C-alpha cells in the first residue's frame, strides 16, 4: 500500500522533505507502522519522532494517533504542536 506523508513547519525543515510517498507492506496498517519506518532512518527522524518528541499527526486531514488505521491512498501528515491564533 502507498501512503502520502506530509511534513510541516520545524519538522519539514529538520527532515528537509515536504512530502514523500511511502510504500508499506499489506493493505492496512496503523500510523505507528509509518512512524516506525521513519524512525529506522536514524537521526533526525529517530530523534524528532522519539517517544517524548511531542509531534502530532493527522490522517486525511483529521488529527490522529499512533493507533489510527491507515490504508492505501491515505494522506498522513506529521507536524509539531500547532501554534496559530
Amino acid at each position: 500500500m502507498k501512503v502520502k506523508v506530509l511534513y510541516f513547519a520545524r519538522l519539514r525543515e529538520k527532515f528537509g522533505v515536504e512530502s514523500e510517498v511511502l510504500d508499506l507492506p499489506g493493505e492496512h496498517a496503523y500510523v505507528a507502522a509509518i512512524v516506525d519506518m521513519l524512525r529506522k532512518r536514524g537521526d533526525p527522524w529517530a530523534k524528532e519522532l522519539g517517544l517524548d518528541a511531542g509531534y502530532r499527526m493527522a490522517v486525511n486531514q483529521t488529527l490522529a494517533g499512533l493507533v489510527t488505521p491507515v490504508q492505501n491512498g491515505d494522506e498522513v501528515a506529521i507536524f509539531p504542536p500547532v501554534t496559530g491564533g
Partner: protein
Amino acid sequence: MKILVQETDFDPGAEIAALHAGQPRVGAVTSFVGLVRDVNEGDAINTLTLEHYPAMTEKSLRGIVDEAMGRWSLLDVTVIHRVGLLNPLDRIVFVGVASGHRGEAFAACEFIMDFLKTRAPFWKKEGTPQGDRWVEARATDDEVAERWQQSSKKDPA
C-alpha cells in the same frame, strides 16, 4: 458560518456588522482579534510567518465551529485566519460569534480560540535580530483547551 484562511487583512468592524446586520434575533456579538506583538519571550520580533496545512485548515476550523454550535445556541460564527508574512501590529486572526444572549456568545468565542490554538494546523515562525525561530507550543494552551472537556465551568448560567 464563514471560515476564511487568507493572506490579506480583514476588517473587524465589517465582520461584526455582518454577524448581526438585518438579524433582529441577535442580542450579542462577541469578537476576538489576535495581533502580532513586537516582543515575545523577551526578544524583539521583526516578522511573523504563518505556515499552515492548506487541505486541513478549513476542515479543522469548521469542525471547531461545529462543536461550538452544538454546545451553545449560536446564530452565526465567523473565523478568519491569516497566513504568510506578517509584521508587528498586524492582525492575525478574527473570531466573531452572534447569539441571542451574551453568556453563550462569550463562551463560544473563547472556546473557538482555545481550540483553534491547540487543534488548527497553523505554525508561527518569528524573525528576530538573532535569526528565525519556530514558536513553541505552550502547555498552558493545552490545559485551557482541556478544561472545556472536563467541566461546564465556562458554560453560561
